[in-house]
């Protein structure tokens, strides 16, 4: 029997192309403070602190340690870090809460991609023997996947449709970076950035941060009128080598969705699909029907803070459960090239069945 754990608060910074004056801690601190304040749990009462970030963005080893300046780690706190998106930090925090000796956790993530050339930095996550030496940038790698997906019987109009819907949804999200009302036919007239991807098929480069607070059982019920209970969570990884998997589908998402208990009762889905063609791949793998509201926040096509965009999906989904807009939501996060790793989390506002 798993211990009941819920997301009880969420905060995020506005995503911007470049934070010209603030460093990572200066971006992160107000976000962490807001998430803790909204949780109703005292800062010193938080049982566990967990972060997700990437030293390659700052270009310095152990750059993540400075993130703790935003938290106040004295007297010493229990904390840990993953060199992964904050959604995986949330997973570790969820596991930590299963131990039963503590009842709450702060999870934060931050990324300042403007310090380097992000498409090139992301080459460093590729297989170091056969692929990385060719130095294929992240957009070109995604374009390979888009081509495989188109060859499987899809169209560029579908991709433009995802982009148009995401940008329109983002108009209601004050934290989003790219927003606007575009006709699909207008988007289709745009030139290719890297064929078959046009500019709108790609995510913006973003600086920012996000944080959630998790609470278990009675504490969650006490501090939150309607906690977003984590009813299932799972993550799966596919082969590192791009050539040995079918890039037009997502087997790992399908498996994670099965294990997490994604079912026909989902109202809202926040999917971490940085490139437009990835959203229909994920939709299919998750088995989401047409009635599901996908990426009402605008998704990663509208704001894509590296290392925080996955945790932001969890937060956006949870917020809709907490405020009653959604009954049951699914949050998805991805990592690695072409949806290599996928995490799926089911959040529900109702009492456990």
């Amino acid at each position, binding site marked *: 029997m798993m211990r009941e754990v819920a997301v009880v608060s969420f905060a995020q910074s506005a995503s911007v192309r470049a934070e010209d*004056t603030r*460093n*990572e801690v200066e971006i992160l*601190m107000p976000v962490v403070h807001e998430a803790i304040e909204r949780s109703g749990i005292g*800062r010193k009462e938080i049982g566990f602190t967990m972060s997700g970030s990437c030293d390659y963005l700052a270009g310095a080893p152990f750059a993540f340690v400075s993130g703790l*300046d935003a938290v*106040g780690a*004295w007297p010493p706190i229990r904390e840990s870090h993953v060199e992964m998106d904050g959604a995986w930090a949330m997973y570790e925090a969820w596991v930590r809460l299963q131990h039963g000796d503590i009842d709450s956790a702060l999870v934060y993530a931050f990324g*300042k991609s403007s310090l380097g050339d992000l498409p090139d930095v992301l080459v460093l996550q590729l297989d170091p023997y056969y692929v990385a030496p060719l130095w294929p940038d992240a957009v070109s790698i995604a374009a390979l996947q888009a081509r495989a997906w188109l060859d499987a019987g899809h169209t560029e109009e579908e991709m433009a449709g995802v982009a148009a819907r995401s940008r329109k949804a983002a108009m209601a999200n004050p934290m989003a970076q790219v927003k606007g009302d575009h006709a699909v036919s207008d988007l289709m007239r745009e030139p290719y950035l890297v064929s078959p991807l046009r500019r709108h098929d790609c995510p913006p480069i973003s600086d920012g941060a996000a944080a959630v607070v998790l609470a278990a059982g009675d504490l969650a019920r006490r501090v939150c009128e309607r906690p977003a209970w984590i009813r299932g969570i799972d993550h799966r990884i596919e082969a590192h080598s791009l050539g040995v998997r079918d890039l037009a589908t997502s087997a790992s998402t399908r498996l994670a969705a099965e294990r997490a208990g994604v079912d026909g009762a989902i109202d809202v889905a926040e999917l971490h699909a940085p490139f437009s063609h990835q959203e229909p791949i994920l939709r299919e793998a998750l088995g989401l029907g047409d009635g599901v509201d996908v990426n009402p926040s605008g998704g990663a096509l509208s704001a894509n803070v590296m290392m925080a965009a996955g945790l932001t999906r969890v937060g956006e989904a949870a917020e809709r459960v907490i405020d009653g807009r959604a009954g049951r939501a699914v949050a998805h996060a991805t990592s690695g090239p072409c949806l290599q790793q996928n995490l799926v989390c089911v959040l529900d506002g109702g009492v456990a069945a």
Partner: protein
Amino acid sequence: MPGRAASRFLRGIEQGKILGQRCPSCRKVYVPPRGACAACGVATDEEVQLGDKGTVTTFCVVNVPFYGQKIEIPYVSATILLDGADIGLMHLIQEVAATDVHMGMRVEAVWCDPADRKPTLESILHFRPTGEPDAPFDSYREYV
């Protein structure tokens, strides 16, 4: 991109001023400031101008030559607790034999010519002994 707090510090150095920041919670003064008190987890927005003088809390005599070395060995790299600060600053101690540098030694900053000052700690060439009596150990024991 050093951030807002470090940018203010570096602009101060360019003008010959050493600027720290005080934590509103524990009142400790950080220099160079990073915009946050790591102990309290709050923003440090109160600016404090520090003087040029401080105390050597610990030091290291460098005897090993390495590629790109600009200073003649042996030389001394030290942690200097500026008067009024609550954290040590790393810098060089010169104008004294390496064998004479010791904990508690009172030192002062030697700035480069004002026309050459840039937003970098290299605008302080080094620290040198002031000749004052040593600071008592209790005055810096918390910072060793």
